[in-house]
């Protein structure tokens, strides 16, 4: 009876005949787990950032049905908890396959945040400051409202693939994601230089995704067309909040308005084609995509400005009352792999992409609503750096062309020499920059001549050259630029953005893998990388990276197997900057306590040790353990070209230590019942100058900042115990 009921249920879901499912053989398990934890922490968000470790019970299941023609799996874990996952998948061999799922992802950002604003979790934030006539929120943090920064994603979706008409197939997918929670959002009360307020911003999104693909797939040719649609909806367009910097009557009548994520619609068409068994045993792959991203939103006609503590209404005088966003992305890709000779393989490839931004271009001329006078510095003149009272949205476009070749020569059956060249040209439209050309070459040698070891070494050199439109100077000669190199153009010309700047990059990799005896695997890898930015006056001058990875595994998995790794990574980022009033004509001005050139060196050392073992002590009893020990030491060193500028190094910069130990034993009571008892210990400490000694109401100059505690005090120590009873059938 029970078997028939299950068969009918499954058959109904498969949309097929019950008879076929009556032949299914069922197996699987159901489990009940109890978790308990003892956590010592002010803000243990790093402990359960993505895990629901709250004390209590949960259930899991793993039900399988199997026959010569059909199969299905119903899998679920953490049922009823924030990280619940359920998937039902099945197939009739050669006819169709499908899956249905629910995947909940919790993302805890910070526990125990506090705010003087009321309304955390919705789109209107205010405070009762006017009651005492101060128009300010209370600085007594003991009466602030506590809340958690946390976001939960709930995904529901499925896929269906029709294969009966092979080689033709149809595949459809659908997914709905609900995202809800609160995230930290900082805002200045005045700008520039004003106090900042950390606000609990509401997150309430719905994303709908759907796609359909038809295709034809054989061993020599494949073609497919895929159309997809994605609709993102934010159920709050704006977050309105009372600005504590405004302390005149406007404070009680007008709120600030911060824009939240805008709704959007994305349509995409993809076409793929593949031909195999062409001359020279070649394979040709092609892909073309076209997507259109659109949105439509009103442009605020008013805003606020703050002078001192006096708020004013500003008319934004936008050239359009509506922003119609449209971004078109197009791409074409091709790849041709060939066997030029018996031991020589090649690959030619080409990737082209274009982004076109056809959105409404809007000009703003903000003026005081009462007086009509200009109220804000909207932008800077690109040639004189003079303040502008208008600002115009800049629509970014780019076209990217990439092509290259890879060659592989099997010198002998155990030696391979590879090499290649890659060229990428990116053209864009910006005031300061319009083109980047990347040339990259690499050579790699691999040797597996030794019975027990394979090793390979790779070297890559990348040269990036860019067109900066505001001038291109030689490296700075401190304390002053050579005569003739001073310029009346804007100060921005001295600045080179690291992602675009001329760069000579070198990469060296050496890896060895060895299996000197059965059940013994050894591995080692060294990676050295250097970015040497060229002609940098201001910006990142160099970054280097050194990495070492060691690993070993030993033992028969049926008896005892242990695996261990050790990682070390060191990075350094060097940069040069200018503190002082920007003035191209006098740069760099005579140095003193407040005007000087300075360099920063951000260093980071990471150590990780990992160890894990599986020990089936008897046929019924198995022990498993894992240990990870990590430490990162981050520092920043400074130097300045002024003796009067005393810069103090930062001894702790995202430094942390983490130890995680997990031990468990599993005992098979009988053929149906299994019990697992486990314990985990985790300890995390964080040391960072930006967060240490966290203050919720710090004063900077005359500015009263209001913070909420986001990411503060994350140290934790936790003991977790768990017991699982599993019934197998």
């Amino acid at each position, binding site marked *: 009876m029970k078997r028939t009921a299950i068969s009918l249920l499954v058959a109904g879901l498969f949309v097929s005949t019950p008879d076929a499912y009556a032949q299914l053989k069922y197996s699987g398990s159901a489990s009940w787990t109890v978790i308990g934890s003892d956590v010592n922490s002010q803000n243990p968000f790093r402990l359960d950032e993505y895990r629901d470790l709250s004390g209590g019970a949960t259930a899991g299941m793993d039900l399988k049905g199997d026959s010569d023609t059909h199969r299905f799996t119903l899998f679920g874990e953490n049922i009823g908890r924030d990280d619940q996952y359920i998937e039902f998948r099945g197939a009739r061999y050669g006819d169709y396959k499908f899956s249905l799922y629910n995947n909940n992802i919790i993302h805890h950002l910070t526990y125990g945040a506090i705010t003087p604003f009321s309304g955390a979790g919705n789109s209107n934030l205010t405070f009762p400051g006017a009651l005492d006539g101060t128009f300010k929120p209370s600085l007594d943090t003991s009466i602030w409202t506590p809340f958690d920064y946390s976001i939960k994603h709930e995904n529901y979706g499925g896929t269906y693939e029709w294969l009966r008409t092979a080689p033709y197939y149809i595949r459809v997918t659908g997914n709905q994601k609900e995202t809800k929670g609160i995230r930290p959002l900082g805002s200045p009360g005045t700008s520039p230089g004003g106090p900042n307020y950390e606000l609990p911003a509401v997150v309430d999104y719905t994303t709908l995704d759907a796609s359909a693909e038809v295709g034809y797939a054989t061993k020599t040719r494949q073609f497919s067309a895929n159309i997809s649609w994605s609709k993102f909806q934010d159920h709050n367009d704006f977050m309105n909040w009372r600005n504590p910097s405004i302390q005149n009557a406007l404070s009680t009548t007008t709120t600030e308005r911060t824009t939240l994520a805008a709704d959007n619609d994305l349509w995409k068409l993809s076409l793929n084609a593949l031909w195999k068994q062409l001359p020279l045993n070649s394979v040709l792959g092609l892909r073309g995509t076209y997507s259109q991203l659109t949105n439509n939103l009103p442009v605020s006609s008013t805003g606020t400005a703050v002078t001192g503590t006096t708020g004013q209404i500003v008319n934004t005088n936008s050239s359009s009352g509506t922003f119609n966003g449209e971004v078109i992305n197009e791409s074409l890709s091709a790849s041709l792999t060939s066997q030029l000779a018996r031991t020589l393989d090649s690959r030619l490839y080409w990737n082209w992409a274009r982004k076109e931004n056809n959105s409404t271009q809007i000009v703003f001329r903000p003026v005081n609503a009462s007086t009509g006078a200009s109220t804000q510095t909207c932008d800077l003149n690109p040639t004189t750096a003079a303040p502008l009272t208008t600002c115009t949205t800049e629509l970014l476009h780019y076209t990217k062309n990439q092509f290259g070749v890879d060659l592989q020569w099997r010198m002998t059956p155990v030696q391979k020499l590879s090499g290649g060249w890659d060229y990428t040209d990116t053209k864009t439209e910006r005031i300061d920059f319009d083109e980047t050309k990347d040339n990259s070459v690499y050579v790699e040698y691999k040797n597996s001549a030794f019975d027990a070891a394979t090793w390979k070494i790779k070297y890559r050199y990348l040269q990036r050259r860019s067109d900066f439109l505001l001038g291109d100077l030689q490296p700075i000669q401190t304390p002053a630029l050579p005569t003739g190199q001073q310029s009346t153009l804007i100060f921005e010309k001295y600045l080179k953005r690291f992602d675009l700047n001329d760069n000579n990059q070198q990469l060296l990799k050496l890896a060895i893998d060895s299996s000197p005896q059965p059940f013994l695997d050894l591995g080692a890898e060294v990676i050295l990388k250097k970015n040497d930015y060229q002609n940098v006056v*201001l910006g990142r001058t160099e970054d280097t990276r050194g990495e070492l990875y060691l690993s070993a595994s030993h033992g028969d998995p049926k008896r005892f197997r242990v695996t261990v790794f050790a990682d070390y990574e060191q990075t350094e980022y060097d940069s040069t900057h200018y*503190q002082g009033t920007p003035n191209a004509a006098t740069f760099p001005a005579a140095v003193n306590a407040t005007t000087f050139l300075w360099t920063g060196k951000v260093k980071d050392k990471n150590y990780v040790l990992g160890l894990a073992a599986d020990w089936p002590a008897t046929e019924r009893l198995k022990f498993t353990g894992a240990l990870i020990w990590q430490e990162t030491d981050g520092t920043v060193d400074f130097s300045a070209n002024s003796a009067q500028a005393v810069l103090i190094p930062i001894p702790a910069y995202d430094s942390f230590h983490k130890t995680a130990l997990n031990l468990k034993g599993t005992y098979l009571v009988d053929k149906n019942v299994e019990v697992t008892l486990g314990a985990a210990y985790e300890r995390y400490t964080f040391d960072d100058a930006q967060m240490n000694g966290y203050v919720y109401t710090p004063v900077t100059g005359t500015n009263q900042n209001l913070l909420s505690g986001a990411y503060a005090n994350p140290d934790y120590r936790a003991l977790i115990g768990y017991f699982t009873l599993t019934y197998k059938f």
Partner: protein
Amino acid sequence: MSDRSHCRLVRVLTLLVGALLVVVGVDTLSPQLATAQAPGPEVCKACHSAYAESYEASIHGKKGHPKVPANNGECAACHGDGSAHVKAGGGRGVGGIVNPSPRSKSLTPEARANICLSCHSDNRHLAFWDSGRHRKNDVSCTNCHSTHGGNPSLLNVQNPPIRPFETTSQVPQQEICFTCHRDIRALVNRPSHHPIPEGKIKCSSCHNPHGALSPAMVNNESINQLCTSCHADKRGPFMFEHPPVEQNCLICHNPHGSRSVKLLNEKVPNLCQDCHDAAQHPGSAYDLTEAFKGAGGTAPSNRFFARGCLNCHNQIHGSNAPASRGRRFVR
């Protein structure tokens, strides 16, 4: 319908069918390879019982599936004709038996992959296998998959996973990838990471290990389109755009993990200062004096403590606020 119209329709249809045949070729009309007359599982089981039983339980052993080894030569489909092997009384490599295991030195990685591709080359997931990095780097199917079953994706996890206690019991796909991608393992273990160890997303959520035309074998034509397929709130279009955001998310973020919050490549304000220096305040040296408990007793800077630049520039991915508030990404 008149006869003339009927004839025209037949001609058009004939042409269309003919064109289709030219496009798709005649390979679909080819019969399946004849089943080899070689020992099957009932013979192999005598010595390799565990392998034979796991094979029979796996999808490869399902008689109802027309394309699997069960209907196309059984064990011989992957291991070759074992007649000589049986006749010689067995033994590793004896009688020309084929072993597609990655530990086997008798086959090149390409030859091992070709055994699987002899059936799977019409799999749409493998369409761009030849273009992918794995083939180029001598990775073959059996480096990651156990052809004898074990879990739904036939993943071959050999080593005990080195990871903290997790609430998932799913097969940790990443452990297979970390066997070679050791640098990624180090990043995924950092405090700021995608929920990969927690089993909520997998390496294959972003990458296609079976080959792709895109760089890094990502599952989309560009990095940004890949990221915004989940992070749809960052798609825009925005009135005021931040240029690096529009070009490549990886300029600021490392999706595999970071010691800094939000998967940032470098800590704020240094990351921002690598591009912003002159205008207004970005060029200031934010040293230890700017911390909450700054050295020297000076007032700290709200451009440094807590979330640094993001204390004010909260809409750094783009803003739809008007005028300078949008231009500066502060509303």
